[in-house]
Each structure stands twice: as C-alpha cells, then as structure tokens.
C-alpha cells in the first residue's frame, strides 16, 4: 500500500534561515507529489505539485521541492524563511493509475515554528 512519511513532527528555524522539510513516499511507480500548507483556522493551500518532467519544482511563496526517485523523496525547501511561513506543512501523494490526482494520501504533517 502507498504511504507518505514526514519524519519531522516539529521544526523550528529562525527568520531568514533556510528550511528543508522532508517527505518520503512508498509507491510502486512514480506518483504525483504535492505539498500543502495549513495555517491556523485555514484550509489546505497547495504550494506546489509534481506530475512529471523537471524534478525541481517551483511553487508559490518562494518554495521549491525536488523529486528524487532514488531516495523516494520530495523534500520542500525555502532559502530564507519569513515569520508568515509558520504553519503546518503536508506532503501528499496521488495515484496516476486512478486517472486523476483527486484521491490523495497525506503525510502526518510538519509543524513549522519561526523564531524572530
């Protein structure tokens, strides 16, 4: 069965520092991969997605993620974190075989705290 693992439950960084959030997946083929962000009291907002092609994906708010097939990873990065980036981040996997990305499997999330 497919699964998504986010090894870090909570990460704290200082404002202006770089950030990397880890995501590993288990799936028999190359899945569709996504990162979502959830701010308090808000819904899930899509940061970026990978379907195929260039393995380095640019998203909104200055985020990027790199798909590494050999490591079954899709880590999220940002070179300089802003206080407004404090939120919960979810990695998700979709299934190409289903013909759509609509049925997503989510990781358990990483809570990001940004220190002033």
């Amino acid at each position: 069965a497919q699964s998504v693992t986010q090894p870090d439950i909570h990460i704290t960084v200082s404002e202006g520092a770089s950030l990397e959030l880890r995501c590993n997946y288990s799936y028999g083929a190359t899945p569709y991969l996504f990162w979502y962000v959830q701010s308090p009291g808000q819904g899930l907002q899509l940061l970026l997605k990978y379907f195929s092609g260039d393995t380095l994906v640019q998203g909104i708010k200055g985020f990027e993620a790199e798909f590494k097939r050999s490591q079954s990873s899709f880590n999220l990065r940002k070179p300089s974190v802003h206080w407004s980036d404090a939120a919960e981040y979810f990695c998700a996997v979709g299934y190409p075989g289903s013909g759509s990305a609509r049925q997503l499997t989510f990781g358990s999330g990483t809570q990001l705290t940004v220190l002033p």
Partner: protein
Amino acid sequence: DTAVSQTPKYLVTQMGNDKSIKCEQNLGHDTMYWYKQDSKKFLKIMFSYNNKELIINETVPNRFSPKSPDKAHLNLHINSLELGDSAVYFCASSLLELGQLPTFGSGTRLTVV
C-alpha cells in the same frame, strides 16, 4: 469570494447525538469530497461525489452519510456520534479531470464529549 465554505467551524456535541456539517463551493467544480483529519494529523479521504453521484467511498462506518443535493453542495450527516469521531473534517472540490487537484475548505473541528 470564490471558495469552498463549510459550516460550522466548530462543533461540540455529546455522544449519541446526530449532527450535520454543510459544505458549499462556488468554483463551478463537478466533484466534491470529504476528508477526515485525525488526532495524528493524517488526512484521509472519506467520500467523493461527482455530479451528485458517489464515486469514492472509503471504509467509513455507515453512521456517516453524505448527501449531495446538487453539484455545489455536499453535506455530511453523522448519526449516533462516538468519541472516536472527534476530528477535523475537511470538505474539498475539484474538476474530475486528470491533474485537477482539490480546493479545500477551512475545516470543521468536531469534538464529541
């Protein structure tokens, strides 16, 4: 505002009660979903409706009954609430096409006491 809106945002109720959560989208999407986020933050799909027809039904107790009166609405009714039903429930919508990702509502935090 174009969005997926769900009500109420918070719901506290006693065990055994029946409650409903409403969801509406004005994005012109033809597919709607309910997801459950448990205490460990895992989001799992529960149901999906396309043009008012059920297309995804994961292993969910039959106390949960989704109702879609039209394409823009997907309500979730829960009978005989149990403590384990406490969670955040997210509604979402999308177009049923390859690569179309769901747009999520802000969630309903259900607490069963």
